[in-house]
């Protein structure tokens, strides 16, 4: 992993995903906080240690992995979070935009002001896809909804909190963060606001990890667009062991059951009325069927 396995975000999820495989009897190890500069070395080291499958968790490992894969025998490399086809390796592409669309449906239904906000840790395409999905979902149920977007940082909690506060001040009452571990700041802002003004609640969501039970604002987190990494890892692990391994892009999305919207169970039946639930489910079916596409 690129980050620390306890970063409360992307890298930690990978560790948890891996732990689930481990529970299923697979032998695993983790090496964390590897920068692109040392990635090739680490990949070779792991291969030399005899691991049969290396999951390089992060797009920044794509190039080193491609390079290392040229010389490897018996070890397979999967790069999770990358979306490009490269010879010799499997890349796992996560498309969260469809799940984001489902969250957008909820947001569109529950917003009072019609103003929604999206905060991304960086302004690159996979993040923007979540924004577009969220926007499209919201518009599908409330045509006049607007989604303000802002890009902050994946690790600066303070900055993200300040950004969320700025959104709230603008009258935004639904905030969808895609900022990894730094979402703590956004949840903090939401919690603070809702404690102060319980009569005009601001709602929030989770992205990538399941934030429905986050300690700060779990009460006000409606749903999360989750990447089931254990699911994805199990897919590649299976193909690596049963001989179906084929270099190329594995597309993980709503249909594959890996990138899904998970409603907050404590709010289901309350704020998340059966009607909304039904709508979210319907949208999901249409997305899988391809009758709805994200622009």
């Amino acid at each position: 992993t690129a980050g620390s396995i306890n970063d409360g975000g992307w890298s930690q999820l990978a560790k948890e995903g891996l732990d689930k495989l481990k529970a299923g009897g697979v032998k695993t190890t983790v090496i964390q906080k590897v920068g692109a500069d040392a990635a090739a070395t680490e990949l070779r080291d792991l291969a030399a240690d005899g691991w049969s499958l290396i999951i390089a968790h992060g797009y920044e490992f794509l190039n080193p992995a491609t390079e290392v894969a040229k010389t490897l025998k018996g070890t397979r490399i999967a790069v999770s979070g990358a979306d490009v086809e490269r010879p010799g390796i499997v890349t796992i592409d996560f498309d969260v935009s469809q799940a984001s669309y489902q969250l957008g449906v909820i947001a569109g239904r529950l917003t009072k002001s019609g103003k929604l906000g999206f905060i991304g840790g960086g302004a690159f395409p996979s993040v923007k896809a979540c924004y577009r999905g969220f926007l499209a979902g919201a518009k599908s149920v409330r045509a006049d909804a607007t989604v303000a977007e802002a890009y902050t940082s994946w690790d600066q909690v303070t900055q993200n909190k300040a950004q969320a506060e700025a959104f709230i001040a603008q009258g935004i009452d639904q905030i969808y963060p895609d900022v990894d571990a730094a979402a703590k700041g956004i949840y903090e802002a939401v919690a603070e606001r809702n404690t102060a003004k319980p009569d005009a609640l601001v709602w929030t969501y989770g992205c990538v990890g399941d934030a429905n039970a986050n300690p700060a604002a779990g009460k006000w987190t409606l749903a999360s667009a989750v990447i089931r990494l254990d699911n994805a890892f199990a897919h590649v692990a299976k193909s690596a062991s049963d001989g179906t391994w084929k270099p190329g892009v594995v597309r993980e999305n709503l249909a594959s059951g890996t990138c899904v919207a998970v409603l907050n169970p404590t709010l289901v039946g309350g704020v998340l009325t059966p009607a909304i639930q039904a709508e979210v489910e319907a949208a999901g079916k249409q997305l899988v069927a391809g009758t709805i596409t994200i622009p």
Partner: protein
Amino acid sequence: MSAGILVDALLTGAVAAATPLLVAGLGELAAERAGVLNIGIEGLMLAGCFAAFAVTAATGNPWLGLGAAVLAAMALGGVFAVVSLTCRADQIVAGMAVNLLAVGGTGAAWRILQDRGLTDLPAGSGFTRGWTGIPALGELPVVGPLLFDQYGMTAFALVLAGVLALVRRRTRLGLVLHGVGQDPHALAASGVRVLGVRWGAVLFAAACAGLAGAYLSTMRTHAFVPLMTGGTGFVVLALVMFGRWSVGGLVVGCLLFGLAESAQQGLQSLPGARVVPHQLFQALPYLVALIALALAGRSAPGPAALGRPWPER
């Protein structure tokens, strides 16, 4: 949406961002007045930030966290003082070493904390906003958002600024600090223990930096993420210089910088903003600091002995 609310939000954000800068800045101001330039302030803030979080997470008592932040930062500040004052190594370089130590130390300690599952503060254990406990005060126009709809640290920062201004103008301590930074020879000849004063100033600055760090983790966000001070300490150094080593100047500088930060947040969500790379917005406060420093020029030199070891040989 009325403009008034947006302005209020802008000001609230500005003050919230200015608070840690001011607290750490006041400490650094005292140290620089005494002739010590500590660019390890970033590391000290990080140490405080972590220690406050760790102890609050473990005990549920944020006051203990504050105490831990002060102690941790002072311990690290003590390392800086030993190296740069007692051993007379170059202050800049010693500051860099402190930063390294803080980054490594908090990184490793954070892992230990996580292994114990202490990655979140127990519910309701952080400090809460609206330090007076009277929500109505926060609704007051202007002073509400500026002063009352904030954490206690903001009030503390203002009190500390007042106290420091008073110390500078009206006490012998203020004169001693000034003299030690301006002409340590003269002070030593009068029997003032120059090194002792500098040690005191450095430890005070460390304590302030620790509090500023604690603000970030136990007040402003109730969270810790490695490296979460994100360069604030370096901005503090720029602001002390920008404020010409005066308390008033520092307060103004912190507010301006806070406004730049806060405005950056508002600007990002403007309709046309996406044309500009978002990194530019994030670089904005730093560019503002650079430009402000460049425009301020070299009109007033700092304490004459700033950065110099004592005794010189």
